[in-house]
């Protein structure tokens, strides 16, 4: 099936975006990435540990021609911090995409809407391809699109919580009105959650913990791949409306007497 999509000017086949945090083992992580068939990998930007500067780094294992890197601004609590991290990420020369993540609260890790909007506006002006991690607020999603973000990424539920989609209704509002891709980011716990997000009409799903901390991350990565594909196909196919009562699948005529 030809069902490609674009973020900014870049075209993709896979609709699963995979985070690279929390994996216990780099070999397992490599296999998980492989079987997921993802084309977009997120990273964080941090100080190099000068006491251990040669610790193996997952990025160095990757064939960078095969993947688009999506660095995030995780750790930022203000728009200024997010912009600084984004500029550092781009200065690597590896990417011009940025996942804007401005956190408003350390317990819920919910995004700060004002900081997110400010940072997104600034980074769009600086020519970044901006993917804004946001809450499930349809109005904020609209405002983000007005400042020119290239994708909005509403959370399904708090980062790393595995709670799945807790406000399907508002996600639908965001998807219905969006003029840019909508990627459901954060909180996905199971392949069913990923499929559900895609059935709602999302353009993609970004997840990390659900795979990294699964008992078998490689199997879960494959399951997420199929979850996303199944949900996308289901969305395109158009599901039947729900009815209160039964409707026989077998003919009611021609019964043997």
């Amino acid at each position, binding site marked *: 099936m030809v069902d490609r999509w674009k973020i900014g000017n870049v075209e993709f086949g896979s609709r699963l975006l995979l*985070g*690279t*945090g*929390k*994996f216990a083992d780099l070999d397992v*992580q490599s296999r998980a990435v492989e079987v997921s068939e993802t084309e977009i990998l*997120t*990273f*964080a*930007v*941090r*100080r*190099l540990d*000068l006491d251990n*500067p*040669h610790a193996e*780094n*997952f*990025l*160095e294992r990757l064939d960078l021609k095969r993947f688009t*890197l999506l*660095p*995030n601004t*995780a750790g930022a609590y203000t728009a200024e911090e997010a912009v600084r991290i984004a*500029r*550092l*990420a781009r*200065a*690597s*020369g*590896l990417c011009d995409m940025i996942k804007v993540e401005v956190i408003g609260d350390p317990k819920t890790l919910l995004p700060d809407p004002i900081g997110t909007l400010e940072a997104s506006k600034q980074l769009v002006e600086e020519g970044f391809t901006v993917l804004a991690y946001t809450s499930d607020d349809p109005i904020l999603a609209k405002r983000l699109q007005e400042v020119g973000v290239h994708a909005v990424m509403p959370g399904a539920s708090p*980062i*790393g919580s595995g709670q799945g989609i807790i406000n399907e209704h508002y996600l639908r509002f965001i998807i219905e009105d969006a003029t840019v891709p909508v990627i459901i980011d*954060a909180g996905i716990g199971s392949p069913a959650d990923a499929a559900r997000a895609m059935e709602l009409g999302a353009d993609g799903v*970004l*997840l*990390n*913990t659900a795979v990294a901390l699964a008992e078998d991350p490689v199997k879960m990565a494959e399951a997420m791949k199929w979850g996303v594909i199944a949900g996308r196909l289901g969305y395109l196919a158009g599901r039947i409306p729900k009815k209160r009562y039964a409707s026989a699948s077998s003919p009611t005529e021609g019964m043997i007497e």
Partner: protein
Amino acid sequence: MLLRVNGKELHTNEIHTVQELLAHYQLQQKIVVVEKNGDIVDRTLFASTPLADGDRIEIVHFVGGG
């Protein structure tokens, strides 16, 4: 002179440029980004960017994250 690199003090008289600083930590082959006193140093200018006493340097890279 005294540099502050990733928050730690480094006393040195042999390091005069960003490139020499990276060589000091054997980072020439690593994908890193360098900030000097809050400004990003262009990768092509590592060799020609001087370091002076009191400079604050950040050496950052990509790590796993979601």
